[in-house]
Structure formats: C-alpha cells, structure tokens
C-alpha cells in the first residue's frame, strides 16, 4: 500500500483538499473490460437508427412517389 502511494503521484488541486481518491466501483470495474465493445454497440445502434429513419421516412416514401 505504501509502495503504491509512492508510485502513484496524486495531484490535489487547490480547493480539492480532503477529497477522495478516484476508484472504480464494482459495476464499473466489471464494465471497464467491455467499454470498447459497449461503445461499438452504441455506435452500431446509432447508425442503425439513422438508416432506419432515413429509409422508412424518406427513401421509401420517395420511391413510392416516383412509382
């Protein structure tokens, strides 16, 4: 523990004296291994929503109109 404090240089900016060190809670500690995967998941969903909205409400109605 002492060794960790020596190697980890904690910078306490003025105004933050006495505040807690930052640690991950249980759920975060588990999720942190999957952050990239979850980010990719959200991006895929985001793009799918764009595709769905554009296709359903713009492209297909326009095609129907042309026909």
């Amino acid at each position, binding site marked *: 523990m002492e060794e960790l404090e020596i190697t980890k240089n904690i910078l306490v900016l003025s105004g933050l004296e006495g505040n807690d060190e930052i640690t991950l809670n249980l759920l975060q500690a588990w999720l942190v291994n999957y952050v990239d995967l979850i980010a990719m998941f959200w991006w895929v*969903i985001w793009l799918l929503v764009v595709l769905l909205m554009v296709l359903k409400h713009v492209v297909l*109605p326009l095609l129907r109109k042309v026909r």
Partner: protein
Amino acid sequence: MKGDTSEEKDLLPRDQIFTRPFEQRFLSWYRRVFSINEVEESLVLKFFFGAMLFVFFLGFSSWMGSRAITLEAFKSGSYTCWPYFQSCGEWYFLSVIPYGYSQTILYMAFFGAMLLIVSLMWKRDWVLAHMLMMILFVWEVLLLLVLTGGLSGNYDYYHIFLTFVLLFVPYKMFFLKLVFVLFYFLSATVKIDDGWILGSYFTALQTGLPIFPDSVAPLVTNMVIFMQVIGAWFLMSKNKVYQRVALFYFIVFHLYSGILVQYRYPATVLPALLILFGPLYQYTKVPLVKKTLAGWLLVILLCIFQSIPLLISGDHKTTLEGNKYGFYMFEANHQCISDVAIYNKDGSVATSTSESILARNRCNPYDRWFQMNQLCQRAEDVEKIAWTFDHSINGDPFYRIVDEENVCNLEYKAFSHNEWIKTPEEGAEVIGYPVKNIYR
C-alpha cells in the same frame, strides 16, 4: 363572417402603419417567403414563438452586463474568439458600465423590441412580430457565433436552431419537432465513451451522481444514451402511449439534470418540449416536397457540425479541438493545471500557475493559447512564453498535453489537429492522478 375577417385585418398594426401599396406588397411578400401563415394558423407555433421570445429575454439579460465583446475586453486582451475567426476582437465597438453606456443602450433597445413583440403577438400581427424577432436573432447569432467564443452555452444552440426553423423554414411544425429530437440524437454522440458508459463523469465528482448512488451510475448513464439514441424518436410517434412515455422521460430528465445545470438549460428546453410534444401534440407526417429543402438542408448541416470534432484526429474530449462545433454538453469531467513562464527581454522571468477543478470548465488549451497569443502580439518586452498544460478527464490521469518552449511560435488550426496538443496516443506523459472534483 367575411366582414369580420376584413375588419380584423384592418386592425392589424402593419395595415395601419404601412398603408402605401409597395409597403403592403412587401409585407405580403415577406409573409409568404417566411411562411408566416403557418404561425398564424397554429396555436402550437404561437406558443412556441412566445417560448423563444422568453429565451431571448433570458439570454439577453445575462449578456447585457458582460464584458465579453467590449472595447475594454479587447484593449486588455481578456476576450476569446472562435478558432475560425481569431481576429474577432478587432470588430468590437461597445462599452459597458462603468466604462460606457453603449452596450446597455443597445440591450435596452432590444428590451423595447421584446415588449413590442409581445404587443404585436397580442394584436395577432405575426409579420411585424417576426421582423422584430429576426433582429434579436441576428444579434444573437452575431454575438455567439461570430463576435465571441466565450459566451455561448449548449442551450444557446438549441435556441439558435429552433428559432431559425421558426423564423425561416417552411413546414415549421414538422422541422421544429425533427430538429428538437435530432438535438437529443446528436447529443448522444458525445456520450458514447468511457465517461458515460462507465458513468465516471459523475463518480469522479466528490458529490457523485445526484439522488442515485454511485454504484448504479453506469445504469443511469447508459439509460440516458439509450433514450437519446432510441427513445427520443418516440416523441414524434403516432402511438400515444409510446409518445407520452418518451415525453415523461424527457421532462423528468430535464428536471433531474437541472439539479446540476440549474435553471437556464431547462428554461430553454422544457417549454419547447412541452409545447411541441405536450398536451397539444399531434402526429405530423414527414413532408417530402420541394418546399422542405431548406429544412432538410438544416438537418444535414446539424449532422455535419456534430461530426467535425469526431473527424479531427485525436480524442477531442482531451484536446477539445472542434468540441464546441456540435453539441458538447457533459462531454467530459475536466481538471487541469496550466504553468506559464514569461521570459522578458530584460532577462526577468514571471511564472504563474492556474488550476481548474470544476468539472464543467472545459480546460480548452485553445482558450489559454489565445490569451497568451494576445500577450505575444502586444507586449513588446516579452521574448518568449513557455507553457505546460496538464489535463485530466473523467478521473483519468493528468496527461501533459502541451509542453512548449515558446507559445509565441504556435498557431491554432480551427478544423484539424494541432500537433502541439498531444494526446496520450501521441505520447503525452502521465504526470499524476486526480482526486474527485466538484461540479459548478
């Protein structure tokens, strides 16, 4: 009935003031070009007009006493321009109390215009009300997007784009709804990263997430991402149940986020949300006619603006490059340390350190660079300015993202990565670890 209508028309202030044929022709052309009939015919748009006027009042009352675009700010070098217009200070012409009255005179003229708009709305003269609101709008855009980079908040983007649609875009009802939902959808793009997926933005605060325990922070933050990516679209749904559930969520969301951001943000967003999607909500079909081109172009432009920070290489939450070109609310929890050493020609050295502990203060290296660059250009006795800038986001380590011998040799590129701002991937060195900070 016909008699009533013409009598009512005669009573319109514009018909009493502007009686010449060419004036009447201009007014009717103006009414047609800006589709003002849509406002005249819709109670929702009338309410919305009032809501946008209220937000003008909120904004102008906070900018009235600001030094941001005054001659005094320019003379003292204490102003900030947008990266895309770095010479903005040369255009300043106002003075504020106690140095002069011009700014407060201008804002009192705007106040008079606001009163007049209320009176015109009361008398149902939406053409003259529109003209006066356009003056307020032009000033807001000029101020926030041209003259200073230091005044705008994310809520101002809401107001600028919603007012733009209300004033200029045909099919106002549909595009107001779409643009509003798009705000949420685009805002989600800044949340897809560690700070929101882990909820570390909030758990890095000493006070943690409001109301909820920190242990469930990731659940709350991922729920927000879900609702902004998917749930927001149900605000425009035909299905009343889905629509009401989405509306209820976003009302609660804004009331909840107000615990942190306080009144200004919810006062801008909630009236618009309630007017467009509240008790008066009716499903609006997607219009696909030529006249909607302006609206669709705006939608595309919004998407382009939002993509700028994502297209600039490097993590823009660390570098802040392009951060404010799109929605950026709660993009990261910031802490930073800026160390400056000014070397004078007489051999003396003045050093200073400034720190920021406020999560919301963006710690943008550009802002610091801009201030020092003013000094380089103006102070003849300055030989060089050495600068280090250490930045921590979401409780991650402090990285030395700037370590420069002489700031006076640096330039800032507005739309691409500046090599002198280093990301961790580019070898920015870890210089320490933060403790929990505070939100303000």
